[in-house]
């Protein structure tokens, strides 16, 4: 597996990462990973009546990490944060054509989403 072998989906999201950035104001955030270990993912979600109205991500990581975080941020829209089962790392890996040895990267992305979900559980916004 080489650095140039990325699926079209990954390439597109790497070049034009939908939802990249930071949300200001009252948001629920989740983060996981460490730059020193190669991947750090952060999400911000703005909710309205319990569902995600707006989302953003920040990533230090490989193109797969960027693409996956972008996908999650985009697909969180209109979902409730107490159910994160739609983010299945194996299905996402298949969708983005992420090679097996990169599954760990998707798990970090999942962890960041779960971290946000955990915060949501504790928040009054439920």
């Amino acid at each position, binding site marked *: *597996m*080489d*650095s*140039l072998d*990325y699926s079209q989906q990954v390439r597109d999201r*790497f070049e034009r*990462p939908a939802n*990249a950035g930071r949300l200001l104001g009252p948001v629920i955030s989740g*983060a996981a990973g460490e*730059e*020193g*270990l*190669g*991947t*750090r993912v*952060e999400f911000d979600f703005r909710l309205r009546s319990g569902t995600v109205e707006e989302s953003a991500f*920040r*990533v*230090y*990581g*490989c*193109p797969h*990490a*960027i693409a996956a975080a972008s996908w999650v941020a985009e697909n969180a829209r209109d979902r409730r944060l107490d159910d994160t089962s739609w983010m299945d790392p194996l299905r996402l890996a298949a969708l983005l054509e992420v*090679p097996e*040895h990169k599954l760990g990267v998707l798990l970090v992305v999942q962890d960041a989403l779960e971290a946000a979900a955990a915060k949501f559980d504790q928040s009054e916004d439920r």
Partner: protein
Amino acid sequence: MICSKDIIYMDYAATTPVDDRVARLMCECMTREGVFANPASRSHQLGRDAQGRVEMARHEIASLLGASQTEIIWTSGATESDNLALKGVAHSLQDQGRHLITSKTEHKAVLDTARQLEREGFDVSFLIPADQGRVTAEQVAAELRDDTILVSIMHANNETGVVSDIASIGKLCRERGILFHVDAAQSAGKLPIDVEEMCVDLLSVSGHKIYGPKGIGALYVRSCPATRLEPLIHGGGHERGMRSGTLPTHQIVGMGEAFRLARHQMEPETHKLTGLRDRFWAGISKLGGVLLNGHRDARIPGILNVSIEGVEGESLLFALRELAVSSGSACTSASREASYVLRALGRSDQLAQSSIRFSIGRYTTEDEIDRAVAIVAEQVHRLRGLAPKTPVTSDREAG
């Protein structure tokens, strides 16, 4: 999609294109209109014509190195030269001793060969370069033992371009009567080399790092006192028994011409590359958080290795795909392993992974440099913008 034609080639340290003048001569020694016979066919004039070309090329290699023609052995490249030097000496002198000294920042051709010798029961000391990537004579002196039979230290490093003081290590080895091998694949034709002045006993060179063809190299083997080498490849007894196999006339002629051209162009070329390199460095160091890897001054001008803070290595490399560059990590394996050379310089795994080797050469233009600076600037900004925190903006250098 980026079309290959639009890519700016900045990977001259990996390989160089063959110079048109070299290619022309090579073509004279291939087809039936040319000098195509086997140089070993001494029974007819066509074979002798080929042999003549081979010897003229041998003379060119010797001239560039300050050696004599009889001290040059053709090989298939610097990898084979390195293998022949290390194994050849080790197997030949194993009764005198079984200790070798080399450094951790050598090319794999030396490192893996040294590790193979360890498996065979030899003892190898791997020095960690003390002076910003440079191996010093003092370091070598500290490791010398009574049973040391060979010291192998490269001239210019292929990842960082850092140049060690070969002459003083050579002098030390000569005084102690220990054979000294130098991997000069990256320096031949780029830095002055004189095997006599530098007290070198064995020296590896390659054709394709200096606008000659790939798949041909040479090993200088000092003849006085005769350096005994156990051959790696047995057969017809070519190259005085030290390397059998049909001599590839066109490849040899190409390497000879490449070395001849390099000898004549070394000074102006060094000057030009230094200018381009400085222009490139001025451009990218403005970004902040760009660290130069290796000694600031003791280096060849063609290689600039930098670590870029705040961007992950794989994304950086992909973002820069309009530039043909090498990264600070080996992407040959599934797990991206950080460069052992940068690690030996003290870089963290993370910074080593976020490192790029830019290497320029004969055909690099100012315009390419400027475009490359623009691309690096744009992409580093963009990736840093995606990242969680603003990166450090120091521009420390690694030692």
